[in-house]
C-alpha cells in the first residue's frame, strides 16, 4: 500500500496548472505555512465562465495534488458550477485521500471559493453560494489529534 494512489501521485508528480496568471480576475489564498499548507488559486473569467486557473502551493503531496485537481476541475465551468465543487468531489476525482490528508482537499475547495469571492468583490457580483461567506474562516481544524 503506497501512501497515495496513482491518480494523486500523478497529480503530485506532474501537477497541472502550476503558476500565476498575468492578469487574474480573481485570486484566492488559503491556509498558512505555519499550518504546513498554503494554497493560492487564480482564475480568469470570461462572461460567467472560468477560462483558466493556476495555482501555487506550499504543502505536502496531497496539497499539491488537490490544487492540481481542483484547478483542472473548474476550468471550463461557470462560476455557479465552480461554486458547487465540494472537497468531497475533489477527493473522489483523486480516487481517495488518506484520512489525515482530507484537510488538503478542504484547502483547495476554500482557495477556489476565495478566488471567486475576490472576483465577485472586484466586479460587484453576487452569488447565492457566497452569501455570508467568510474567506478567512477556519473550516479546517481536523488536524488528526494525537490520542493515547
Amino acid at each position: 500500500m503506497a501512501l497515495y494512489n496513482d491518480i494523486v501521485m500523478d497529480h503530485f508528480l506532474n501537477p497541472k496548472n502550476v503558476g500565476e496568471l498575468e492578469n487574474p480576475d480573481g485570486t484566492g489564498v488559503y491556509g498558512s505555512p505555519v499550518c504546513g499548507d498554503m494554497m493560492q488559486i487564480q482564475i480568469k473569467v470570461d462572461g460567467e465562465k472560468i477560462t483558466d486557473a493556476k495555482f501555487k502551493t506550499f504543502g505536502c503531496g496531497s496539497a499539491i495534488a488537490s490544487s492540481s485537481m481542483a484547478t483542472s476541475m473548474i476550468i471550463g465551468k461557470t462560476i455557479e458550477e465552480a461554486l458547487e465543487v465540494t472537497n468531497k468531489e475533489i477527493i473522489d476525482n483523486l480516487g481517495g485521500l488518506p484520512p489525515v490528508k482530507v484537510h488538503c482537499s478542504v484547502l483547495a475547495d476554500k482557495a477556489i471559493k476565495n478566488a471567486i469571492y475576490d472576483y465577485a468583490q472586484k466586479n460587484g457580483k453576487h452569488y447565492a453560494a457566497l452569501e455570508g461567506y467568510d474567506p478567512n474562516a477556519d473550516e479546517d481544524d481536523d488536524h488528526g489529534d494525537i490520542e493515547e
Partner: protein
Amino acid sequence: MRNVYLDYSATTPVKEEVLKEMIPYFTEKFGNPSSLYDKGLESKDAVTHAREQVAALINAKPAEIYFTAGGTESDNWAVFGACEKLKSKGNHIITTKIEHHAMLHSCAFLEKQGYEVTYLDIDKDGFIDLKQLEDAITDKTILISVMLVNNEIGTIQPIKEVAAIAKKHGILIHTDAVQGLGNLPIDVKDLGVDLMSVSSHKIYGPKGSGALYIRKGVSISNYLHGGAQENRRRAGTENLAGIVGFGKAAEIAKNNLENHIKHCSELRNYLKDRIIAEIPDTYVNGTMEKRHPGNLNITFKYIEGESILLLLNQFGISVSTGSACSSTSLEPSHVLSALGVPVEMIHGTVRFTVGDFTTKEDIDYVVDNLKTIVAKLREISSVNSTKGW
C-alpha cells in the same frame, strides 16, 4: 534505479554477519533458555554471550544488562520502574523537551497520575542548560532523564555533567542512549548514569530487541511481570535470536566504532557542504559540534518536507521529515520547536542520516536530485524569498 537509504536513525539493515549468527537460533538451537536440558542450556549460554557483548560496548558488567523488546520498552521500564520504586520519596521528574516520544508520552501518562514533570529547554545549538537543570531540582525530585543523543538533530547532551549533578543531589539518573549506541564511545562508568536505554535495530541488529542497563546496586520496580527471566527482573521468554543478533551487532559496533564515526561524519559533512553551497535558502538545525556522526537536519525554506521526501523517494532515496515515529502525524516536530525553529520552517525540514553502507556516490546522487526537486517545489510554492512567507 539507484537505491540510497539515508535514514539510518530510523532503523538500520541487519548486517550479514549478524544474521548469520542468528539463523541457527531459530530452527536448530531453539531451546527455551529457562529449560534445564542441554537444548535449554545452550540457549542460555547464547544469551549470556550476547549479554557480555552488549556490556562490553558500554563498559558495563554483563549482570547490569537486562534485555528488553527495544528502546521503547527500556525507556518505559526506566521511568515507570523508577517512579514506582521511589513514589514514597517524591513525585517529581526532570527531563527535556526534546526526548523521544517513548519518554515524553510516558511522562505525560505519569502527569495524569499526579506526578510533576519539568521539561528542560534547549538552546539554539540544541543543548540543555545545566544551570536550569540544577535549579529545577526539588526535594521531591526522584528521577532525571536526559537523552544522550537526540534522534532528530543529533546533538549530544553533557550526560556526564548531568549525572554528576544528579549524584550530588542523590537522584536517580537515566539516559536514553538509543541513538548514541555505536555512534560515539559510551562508558557507563565514566558517564556515571544509573539507567541507560539502548536498542538493537539502530546498530545493524534486529528490530524488537534492546536492553536497559541498570547499574549494580540500583533498584527499580519490574515492568513486565511473570517468569524468572533476566535474573527475575524482566519476564517473558527471551527473544533468543534477537538477543544473539543484538550481541553480535554490539560486538561489531565496538570493533568498528572508530571507522564508523570517521566514515559517517566525513560523508555527512560532505552532504552538508554540498547542500549548503549548492541549494540556496537552506539551514542546518543544531550545532555541527557534539553531534551524531551520521545526522544532518536541514530546513529547505519555502517548501514542505513531505513533498521533498516523496520526490526523493521517486529517485529511490529514503529520508525522513523528523523522527520516524512522528512522520505519520501532522504535528510539527517538538524537537525543532524546542530549538526555536519557526513552525513554517519546521514544515520544510528533512533529516538525512548516513550509515555504514553509504558511499560518496550515494551522496552525489542525492544532492544532484535534491537540487532539481527543491527547485521544482519552489517553482510550485506559493511562498518564496521575494514574496516572503
